[in-house]
C-alpha cells in the first residue's frame, strides 16, 4: 500500500517528537523489566546490602515448589473461566443489542459502564454483594441450601473473583463483538434467510464464522487481562486467600516480593509472566492479522 511519507524540515525533529514516548517506555517499562530480569538471577540479603549471583536457581526452585505449581493451576482455571464467561455473556448481549433498532445506542452505553469502574471498586462491589453476613446474594443462595462463605471456602472465593473479574470485562468484549457484528453486511443475513436458514442457524453458520477474527483477538486480550490486570480485584476482595485458594500468579508475584520480601523469586516469577505475555502477543500478531476474512 502506498502511504504518504512526511518530510520533516530537519533530521532531528522526528526523533524529538517520538522522544517523550520512548523516554516513558524506557523509564517505566524497559528499565524495571531489565531490573527484574537481573534480580531474578540474584539473591539479596534481608537488609539489601549485599547481592550474589545465583544463576537459574530461583527458576529451578519455583518449578519444584508445589505452591507455585498449584498457583499455575489456579491461574489457568481463573483465566479460562473469566474468558469463557465474559466472552460468552458479551456475545449474547451483543446479539441482543444488534437486533434492536432504535434503543441500541442506549443499551450499548449502559452496558459499557462497568468498564469505567476501577478493578478495586468492582472487587469491593462484588465483595459486598457476596458478603456472608450482610450480602444479598448469600441470603438468596441460602434458600438453595448453599452456605456461602468466601472467607472460609476456597471454591467460593474463586467464584467471587471470577464473577467480579468477568463482570468488568463483559463491557469490553461486548463492544468488540457488537462492532464486529455490525460490520457483517446485512445482505448476508438476508441471503441466508432466503436460503432457508433460521435465525439460530444464520448466527452459527454466517455471523459467528465471520466474527472469528474478533473472537480470536478477544481471546488473547482476555487471557492477558485475567493474568495481569486482575490484581486489583483480588487485592480488594480475597487477598489471595483463603489458604492460597485465589493466589494466582500475578498476585503471588506481589505476595512473595512485597510481603514475603523474597525479591529474587518474585522477580523470576514476573519474568515468567513476562515471557507468557510476549508469547501471547506474538501469537496475536502472527495469526490475528492473517485470519481476517473479509
Amino acid at each position, binding site marked *: 500500500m502506498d502511504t504518504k511519507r512526511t518530510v520533516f524540515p530537519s533530521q532531528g525533529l522526528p526523533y524529538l517528537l517520538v522522544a517523550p514516548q520512548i523516554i516513558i517506555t524506557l523509564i517505566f517499562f524497559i528499565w524495571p523489566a531489565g531490573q527484574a530480569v537481573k534480580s531474578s538471577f540474584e539473591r539479596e540479603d534481608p537488609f539489601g546490602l549485599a547481592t550474589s549471583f545465583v544463576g537459574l536457581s530461583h527458576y529451578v526452585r519455583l518449578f519444584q515448589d508445589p505452591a507455585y505449581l498449584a498457583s499455575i493451576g489456579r491461574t489457568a482455571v481463573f483465566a479460562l473461566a473469566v474468558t469463557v464467561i465474559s466472552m460468552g455473556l458479551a456475545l449474547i448481549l451483543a446479539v441482543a443489542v444488534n437486533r434492536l433498532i432504535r434503543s441500541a445506542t442506549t443499551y450499548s452505553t449502559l452496558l459499557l459502564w462497568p468498564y469505567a469502574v476501577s478493578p478495586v471498586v468492582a472487587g469491593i462491589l462484588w465483595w459486598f454483594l457476596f458478603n456472608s453476613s450482610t450480602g444479598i446474594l448469600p441470603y438468596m443462595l441460602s434458600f438453595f441450601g448453599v452456605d456461602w462463605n468466601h472467607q472460609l471456602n476456597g471454591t467460593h472465593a474463586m467464584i467471587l473473583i471470577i464473577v467480579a473479574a468477568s463482570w468488568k470485562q463483559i463491557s469490553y468484549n461486548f463492544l468488540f463483538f457488537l462492532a464486529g457484528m455490525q460490520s457483517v*453486511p446485512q*445482505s448476508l443475513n*438476508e441471503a441466508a434467510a*432466503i436460503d*432457508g436458514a433460521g435465525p439460530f442457524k444464520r448466527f452459527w453458520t454466517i455471523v459467528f464464522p465471520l466474527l472469528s477474527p474478533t473472537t480470536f483477538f478477544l481471546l488473547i486480550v482476555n487471557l492477558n487481562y485475567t493474568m495481569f490486570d486482575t490484581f486489583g480485584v483480588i487485592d480488594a476482595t480475597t487477598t489471595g486467600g483463603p489458604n492460597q485458594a485465589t493466589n494466582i500468579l500475578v498476585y503471588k508475584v506481589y505476595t512473595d516480593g512485597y510481603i514475603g520480601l523474597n525479591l529474587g523469586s518474585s522477580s523470576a516469577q514476573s519474568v515468567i509472566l513476562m515471557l507468557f505475555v510476549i508469547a501471547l502477543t506474538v501469537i496475536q500478531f502472527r495469526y490475528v492479522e492473517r485470519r481476517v476474512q473479509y
Partner: protein
Amino acid sequence: MASIDIKGVRKVYPGNVKAIHALDLSIEDGEMVVLVGPSGCGKSTLLRMIAGLETITDGTISIGSDVVNRKEPAERDIAMVFQNYALYPHMSVRQNLEYGLKNRGTPRDEIDRRVTEAARILEITPFLERKPRQLSGGQRQRVAMGRAIVRQPKAFLFDEPLSNLDAKLRGQMRIEIRRLQRNLKTTSVYVTHDQLEAMTLADRLVVMNGGRIEQVGKPIDLYDRPASLFVAGFIGSPPMNLIPVEQLRALAGAAMPVLPEGTDILGIRPDGIMVGGSGGIPLSGVVELIEPVGGESHLYVRVEGIDQVLILVLQGRAEVAETERVDFVLPVAALHGFNRESGKRVE
C-alpha cells in the same frame, strides 16, 4: 415456477413515511418484469416485500396461488441476487452454492448434480473450490446467479445485480442474464435504475416514481407511447425533447398542427427530428455542441426564437459543425402531446 400477484400493496415506514402507495401488479408465470425508476421510487422496497425482507403494511402478495404476506423468506421459495452479491465470504464457491440446498435437506447426490449443472451453465466450474474474495467482480456475479439457479425456485428476484460491474462487463452479463432467464423460463423480477438495462431485459417494463407505478408495458410500447411526462423523460437516451406548446405555436405559425384539447407540452424523441426535411414544424437553430458517439451523433441545438436546447440524433457523422446554423423539422407523426397539469399523455 409461478405467477406473482400484487394487490393493493402499501408500505408505510415508521414516522408515516409512505414508500409505496396502493400498488397493483400481476407478473405472469415465466415472465421477466423489470422495475425501473429513480432512486427512492420504491422499486427496491417492492422487491424486498416480494422476497419477505420487508413487511407489507397493507394489501396482499401472492406467489403462485399462496398469499405469502405472513411467510418467512425461506418459505416463499424464491431466490434473490443482491447488488453486492452477498456471497458468504468464509465459504468456498461450492459451499455457497450448496448452502440453500443443504438447509432444505436436499439429498447429497441431488445437491452435487445441481451444483455441477449450475457451475457448467455459468462457467464457474474451475472456481468451485475458491473463496469469493479470490474471484473477480464478474465471477462473483456468476456465483451469485448460480446460488439462485441451483435452488430451482419459483421466482428469481434481482436487486440491481449489475451496478457494481464496469460498463463492458455489465453489457455482457446483461445478455447472459437474459439468455439464462429465457432458457430456464423462471418468473423474474429485476430492479434497476439503468433504463438501458431495463429496456433490453424486460418482457414487461414497470416504470415507478414516488411509490407509484407510472406505466406498465412492453419496453418498446413505453418508448413509443409514454403515458406520462415522467416516463417520456425517463425512458430513452438521450431523453425526449419537451417543448411548451405556446412557444412552439408562436414560432410555427401556420405549420402548427391541430392539437387535442389540453395539450400544452409537446415531446419528440431526438431521433424523430429530421434535419433539412419537410412536412412538419420547421425550426432552425445554432449547434452548440456535437457528441460523436460513433454510429450516430448527438447534436445540441439552441432553437432560434425560443430559449431552449433540443437534442438531435443523426445517423452517421454530422455534416454540420459546432456554432453553425441548422434547419430541421419536427414531423407531426413523431410528436407526443402531454398536459402539464396532470403530467399525463394527451391523445
